[in-house]
């Protein structure tokens, strides 16, 4: 039996028909304002560290961007350290704060991170464990992926004077769960312990204010909100002990050396300003679309399990604050494998993600889902749908139209694999 042609090459969003792009949490299109800013700046010559007029012009563009970014995110310009993106910012925060704090007090070797952090936080932490004598504590989460504050409280009570830092993300990249960052800050600051948060997925979707949150360091990046890939920032309080990871020309207050990427920084600042200004309207639109997506999936695939908080849920005690990112929906499909679902959806012109890291292309069961208590077999059938500024109802319709056959086929393939695994094939 044959099925309609998958339209090879037509579903990758680059040539021919664009298909339904439901993977904005991986990367989202460059906004036209950011593109214009990038192009304008890319046509000019000038190293922001040079003292002549060309250098001064570049410096001015960088500093205006710094001010714009700081204003958008509730930070002071002097707190902005430009980097090459989220991974670098997370590495700088975890390693830089660890080294800085340990230099002040050699007993401070403990790093507390949530079990659902991105690998850009987890891997530098475990690298420190392997290379610098750090002790890592993975803080547990509940079934929705939300941090267990009691566990943090207990950990702090037991080891407060040995803790170098706490890192808890603002919003989870897979299941979209918002973390109780203010509560984390309150608990950690009782012991004078600095807090880092990875807010890569949050900016532009929920309100993010660096000063009001109380965190000591915050990771932001460009390409998740309409800016270019390869630029980001670490917002870091001036009194935070922070050692450099990249050494060299001493740019960015000596914390991050390297010639400043003026066009990228300019476009990044423009994109952040745009995302933050349009957030109330855009978040509401994303939530409406997301709710339609969740309702549609539940209608055509009732066995699918929504992972993370219910879309309608609000964060503890904060009326109006959602418990989950408005642009995120995440499901597990019992009996199906994520890579089968991904392939079949791609064939049908729908681009989504399993949400978890790949090792040489082999999907691994998500550490986020496992930390939430999802059984490994169920975790293998995960799909993340993430919406962005360019998402339309037609994208969701296309997904819902394709999904019944996709799930049926993926489950049939799962049955074959399952039978094969138990050796039941004659």
């Amino acid at each position, binding site marked *: 039996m044959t099925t309609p*042609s998958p339209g090879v090459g037509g579903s990758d969003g680059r040539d021919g028909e664009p298909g339904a792009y439901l993977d904005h949490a991986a990367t989202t299109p460059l906004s036209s304002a950011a593109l214009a800013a990038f192009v304008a700046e890319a046509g000019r010559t000038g190293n922001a560290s040079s003292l002549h007029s060309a250098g001064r012009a570049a410096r001015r563009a960088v500093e205006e961007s710094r001010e714009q970014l700081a204003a958008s995110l509730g930070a002071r310009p002097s707190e902005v350290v430009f980097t090459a993106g989220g991974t670098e910012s997370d590495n700088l925060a975890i390693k830089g704060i660890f080294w800085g704090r340990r230099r002040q007090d050699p007993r401070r070797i403990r790093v507390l991170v949530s079990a659902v952090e991105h690998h850009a936080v987890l891997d530098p932490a475990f690298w420190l464990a392997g290379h610098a004598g750090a002790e890592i504590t993975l803080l547990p989460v509940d079934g929705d992926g939300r941090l267990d504050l009691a566990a943090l409280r207990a950990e702090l009570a037991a080891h407060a004077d040995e803790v170098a830092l706490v890192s808890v993300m603002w919003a989870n990249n897979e299941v979209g769960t918002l973390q109780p960052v203010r509560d984390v800050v309150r608990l950690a600051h009782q012991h004078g312990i600095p807090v880092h948060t990875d807010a890569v997925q949050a900016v532009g979707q929920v309100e993010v204010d660096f000063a009001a949150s109380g965190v000591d360091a915050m990771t932001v990046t460009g390409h998740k909100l309409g800016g270019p890939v390869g630029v980001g920032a670490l917002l870091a309080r001036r009194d935070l002990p922070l050692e450099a990871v990249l050494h060299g020309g001493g740019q960015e207050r000596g914390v991050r050396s390297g010639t400043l990427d003026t066009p990228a920084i300019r476009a990044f600042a423009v994109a952040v300003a745009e995302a933050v200004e349009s957030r109330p309207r855009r978040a509401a639109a994303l939530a409406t679309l997301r709710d339609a997506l969740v309702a549609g999936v539940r209608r055509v695939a009732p066995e699918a399990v929504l992972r993370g908080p219910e879309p309608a849920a609000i964060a503890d005690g904060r009326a109006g604050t959602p418990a989950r990112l408005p642009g995120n929906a995440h499901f597990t499909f019992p009996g199906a494998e994520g*890579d089968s679902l*991904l392939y079949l959806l791609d064939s049908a012109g729908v681009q989504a993600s399993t949400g978890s890291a*790949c090792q*040489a292309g082999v999907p691994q069961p998500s550490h986020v889902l496992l930390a939430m208590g999802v059984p490994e077999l169920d975790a293998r059938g995960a799909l993340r749908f993430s919406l962005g500024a360019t998402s339309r109802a037609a994208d969701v319709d296309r997904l819902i139209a394709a999904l019944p056959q996709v799930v049926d*086929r993926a489950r049939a393939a799962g*049955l074959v694999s399952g039978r094969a695994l138990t050796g039941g094939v004659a």
Partner: protein
Amino acid sequence: MRVLAAMSGGVDSAVAAALAVEAGHDVVGVHMALSRNRDQFRTGSRGCCSIEDAGDARRAADVLGIPYYVWDLSERFEETVVADFLSEYESGRTPNPCVRCNEHIKFEALLDKATALGFDAVATGHYARVVTRGDGSRELHRSPNAEKDQSYVLAVMGPDRLARAMFPLGGFATKAEVRAEAERRGLSVSAKPDSYDICFVADGDTRGFLRDRLGSRPGEVRDVEGNVVGEHDGAYAYTVGQRKGLGLGRPAADGRARYVVDVQTSTNTVVVGPAELLSVDRVAAEKAVWFDSSLVGPVETTHVETSPAATTWRDVELQIRAHGSPVPAQVRATPGTPGRDGVVAHDGVPGLELRLTGAPLRGVAAGQSAVVYRGTQVLGQATVADAWRG
């Protein structure tokens, strides 16, 4: 058709995928990840299991403009191919893991999943030819490239699986032609070295691999009279017909070369003897697969009192090694596993019996794959259970 191209990262499967695309099929490339712990598998020149190979396969798919996925079949590979490899050696037999991989991985796990996902066929870079008859049924034939011919390791798939297999390299007479095709299409794997040996055995050190996985089990090496002539670290590491690596301190009394003539796992004993003990002209094989049962003739009833009926003897050629030459033989199909003296077991496992009509074969070991040909056509396949001098 919707075709899944299995892409190892080597030149053959890349060209096979390209030919499937050019034949007008909707092609998706899939690389099979066969090891969870990628360090276990060799890197570099080998083509199938390393991260470099996965990257090469991805790059080839990009050049061809086809979607590309990696499917994790490592658990299934360990449970079938590697486990079978170990248990077969452990019971004194000589397995062929490439045959088991074709049987359980490429043309079972991969093919079944592909079929469930809506693919019509799986294309691989094997060197073998498929001939479609007038009635639509299909025959498996040798590649015109005698050196690369892989019909021997494919025979195990049987006719049902062959119906959903595609070997686009079937018509290529030389590897150089395949490399030229790769180069012509800008596939960077065109100059990649060929793969040999067993992909999951690092450095080709099978004995070391077996020792790591099965442990050291010291025992005795005896001659056919029962005299102890040496020691070994585990009888499982020896293969009937083996001459090298016996590590015998003193030469045989008659000064002639000695070979492994038997591996007795029950007593952990390796038996060595002169070459003539290795000569056999009778082979009994189990788990037979026939591409066309009518080829083996009508049932003969002579043995029905003592054993289930067998078919009449037919003239064929027999091959028992991947790179061995076929020898003339007569075959008959048996409805149970055949034994010596023409007795067929009532075990319901189809088998086949062979009697060589030319010179005897040397070093036929249980566990090897016996493939029966008529000319270039594969008639059937079974696993050697026993071999003797009739």
